[in-house]
């Protein structure tokens, strides 16, 4: 095992462990500012470090500091303290680990040796995700039960009932996908989606299996306990549901676990239905051949995009009331400088790509980086969809939820399997 091998393993494990954690901050920020904008208010934008508010991101630091220093209470009435402490750990751990099988770039070839770009190098892919997603509900049930609290146990029960009625449509939706893809390996699934249908449409899961997409997305919402299916929390009915007895960092771990699960299920939806790390119309092979022109286009495109982005920052980051020497304008100036600095660094890297010899390892690494960026952009968009839906829809009533799961999604998923198999058999 050479040094490069060890480095690549470290990189891929670090990526799949830390990127979901970093995205907690992004998710929370997007959720609060997005909710603000959707409801015509501004969201948290006052917390600052030396006057720099970073568009509200500093609020996350403030919240984290608060949660870390709060008193961690385990009520005296809780008999099973071990399970009480174990529950948030299960939720968080399963969420982080289930990202391990998601490929964030195509297999990278360096020195003629190929390196797989996913955290855990196993082939079971989607099955791993299903198993762990199902297991994370145990954390919620355990939390509800060990809280010895009527609201807690109601939340846990609701979550248990919900997960049964949504795991099945989700599994069946995946079955029809697997008929199309013919593999459970997520990297192969993503590679399959790089091809073109009739020569001009990307063969994304969303285009081949629209019905499965709808079923899977609905089930994924239920799986991650997001509105409109957040009955387990239901703050208007059962206070806070399963985490009503949790405080300080134990609550924070639940909270973070929820957002990691959100990230993972977005990543899963992107990988299964929206081409994963594939840039539309550009499969990995094409990308490698046109890497240099692409780098050139990026070199021109990035400053142009940055110019408009800087304009937007300058327009948005001002005080909306008369103020002498507006400190927000000063702040905006520094943000713009930072972003331009970033752009300059990227430009230099792109220049290096342009000057290097074609067909080498540098090109391969460049393509992998492009794919990582594509993947993260797609996942962020999916995260926005989650947030967008949360601030659009009210919560489903319990019976409506069960009705939707059993009477609509389940028959639809079965129908989808029949149609898909018929088409696949007819075509082969």
């Amino acid at each position: 095992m050479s040094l490069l091998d060890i480095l690549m393993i470290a990189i891929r494990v670090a990526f799949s462990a830390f990127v979901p954690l970093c995205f907690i901050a992004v998710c929370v920020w997007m959720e609060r500012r997005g909710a603000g904008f959707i409801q015509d208010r501004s969201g948290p934008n006052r917390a600052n470090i030396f006057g720099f508010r970073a568009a509200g991101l500093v609020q996350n630091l403030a919240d984290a500091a608060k949660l870390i220093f709060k008193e961690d209470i385990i009520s005296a009435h809780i008999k099973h303290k071990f399970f009480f402490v174990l529950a948030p750990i299960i939720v968080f751990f399963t969420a982080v680990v289930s990202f391990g099988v998601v490929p964030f770039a195509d297999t990278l070839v360096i020195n003629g040796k190929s390196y797989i770009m996913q955290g855990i190098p196993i082939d079971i892919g989607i099955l791993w995700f299903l198993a762990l997603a199902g297991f994370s509900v145990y954390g919620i049930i355990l939390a509800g039960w060990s809280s010895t609290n009527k609201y807690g146990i109601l939340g846990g029960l609701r979550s248990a009932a919900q997960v049964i009625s949504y795991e099945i449509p989700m599994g069946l939706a995946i079955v029809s996908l697997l008929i199309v893809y013919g593999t459970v390996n997520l990297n192969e699934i993503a590679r399959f989606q790089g091809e073109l249908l009739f020569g001009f449409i990307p063969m994304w899961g969303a285009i081949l299996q629209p019905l499965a997409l709808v079923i899977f997305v609905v089930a994924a919402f239920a799986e991650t306990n997001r509105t409109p299916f957040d009955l387990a929390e239901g703050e208007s009915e059962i206070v806070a549901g399963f985490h009503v007895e949790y405080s300080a960092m134990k609550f924070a771990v639940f909270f973070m676990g929820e957002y990691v699960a959100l990230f993972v299920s977005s990543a899963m939806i992107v990988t299964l239905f929206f081409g994963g790390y594939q840039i539309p119309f550009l499969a990995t092979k094409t990308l490698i051949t046109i890497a240099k022109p692409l780098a050139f286009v990026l070199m021109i495109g990035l400053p142009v995009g940055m110019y408009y982005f800087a304009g937007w920052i300058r327009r948005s980051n001002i005080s909306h009331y008369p103020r002498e020497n507006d400190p927000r304008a000063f702040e905006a100036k520094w943000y713009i400088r930072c972003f331009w600095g970033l752009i300059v660094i990227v430009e230099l890297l792109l220049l290096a790509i342009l000057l290097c010899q074609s067909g080498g390892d540098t090109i391969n690494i460049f393509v992998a980086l492009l794919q990582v960026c594509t993947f993260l952009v797609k996942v962020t968009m999916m995260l926005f969809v989650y947030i967008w839906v949360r601030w659009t829809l009210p919560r489903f009533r319990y019976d409506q939820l069960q009705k939707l799961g059993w009477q609509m999604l389940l028959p639809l998923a079965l129908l989808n399997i029949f149609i898909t198999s018929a088409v696949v058999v007819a075509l082969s």
Partner: protein
Amino acid sequence: MGAKVKTIARRGSTLQERIFLIEIFKGMATTFGHFWRNLLDNSKLYVRHYPEVKPEIPVRWRGRHRLTSHEDGSVKCVACFMCQTNCPAQCIQIQAGERLDGKAEKMPVSFNIDLLECIYCGYCVEACPLDAIRMDTGIYSVTGKDRESFNMGIDDLLAKQGAFTEEDYKKGGA
């Protein structure tokens, strides 16, 4: 004349609505419209930048109390205890004393209002026969660092002037 009954049609039973998806997309289009508008131009947010931009207080707003005084500066209050008796929160404590300036027989020696007890109902203002107590200071946010700072004495109450003209105050429905 009987009450007008407006019948609101029940919604949600047509096939289009029972499929959910179409209606969900309509709702999402609405929320995204708001999001996009505010993202492009955040000056259109329906918010007041509160500590810097203060709200406009109407004349009838029941703000912090004050005691009014005659033109020569002597207190109007005659310590009749109407407000103290009327106060549902029992936050007013008056001590009466003899009045020597000839305007009345009594005057308050001390007049304390505990603002932590006060519920800002305005009954003291209603009860006062001499227009001696008013809630027209326009102070809507009373803050302090200890409990004592919320206990208003007679000097604190006399010190603050009304935020509105006499004419506006009378028109405002006092």
